[in-house]
């Protein structure tokens, strides 16, 4: 898997690419930790190029939700493909993590 970071105004945009499984989730973990430590106002994870996610990948997001709430950071995922969204939905993660079908909607919500 590959990660890249993009800044848009006050938003820290994380683009994830490839497969996010038990082997690669550590990379995402480091990036999330780094983003939160920087005291960003808003973190959006763009999943457009994410091909696959397992519970190890989703678990990374779950483990930072409390910190994100404490620090009052806007946090959202966006642009999942159908397969990835399906896994997100099976676990009912939409109750805890904001999700937007595209990046523009996520950026608007972050304002």
């Amino acid at each position: 898997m590959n990660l890249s970071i993009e800044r848009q105004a006050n938003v820290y945009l994380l683009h994830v690419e490839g497969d996010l499984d038990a082997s690669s989730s550590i990379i995402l973990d480091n990036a999330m930790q780094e983003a939160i430590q920087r005291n960003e106002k808003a973190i959006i994870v763009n999943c457009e190029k994410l091909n696959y996610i397992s519970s190890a990948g989703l678990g990374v997001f779950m483990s930072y939700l409390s910190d994100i709430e404490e620090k009052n950071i806007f946090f959202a995922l966006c642009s999942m493909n159908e397969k990835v969204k399906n896994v997100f939905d099976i676990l009912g993660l939409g109750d805890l993590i904001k999700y937007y079908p595209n990046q523009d909607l996520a950026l608007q919500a972050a304002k």
Partner: protein
Amino acid sequence: MQYNISIKAEKKNLKKVRTFLENIFTQMQIPELERNQLILVVDEILANLIIHSAKNDIHKNIDVAFYEKEGEITFEIYDYNSPYFDITQHKEVNLQDLKKQKRKGGMGLTLVKNIMDEVEVYYKDNTNIWRLQKRLPFLLLKNKSK
């Protein structure tokens, strides 16, 4: 027709198993979403076994068997590295608890149980045999139309 794949307990082999299954399921014309769910289920169990049972010891083996019969997909995953794992004791994950505990894991088996129709573990010859089954009725229709 039964397919088997035998791997060493190394996380980097997870991707190889996924590709292997992707090829078989594509050939079987299983649609993308179902294909992904089936692959996910095996990936989750293997990740568990690599981490919790084989403890990342790359000299340990794990075997995965797959077959389809009368519209039902069956996986059998052989774990030689753990005492009996009583899955009946496993409870559906509570997401609020997970969030509070800041845990990274804990959702895998819940996913697996939600996707499959049948998830059992039985213990035989010092081996935990995970048997995962899912009925895909459209496979039956396809076979009939041959």
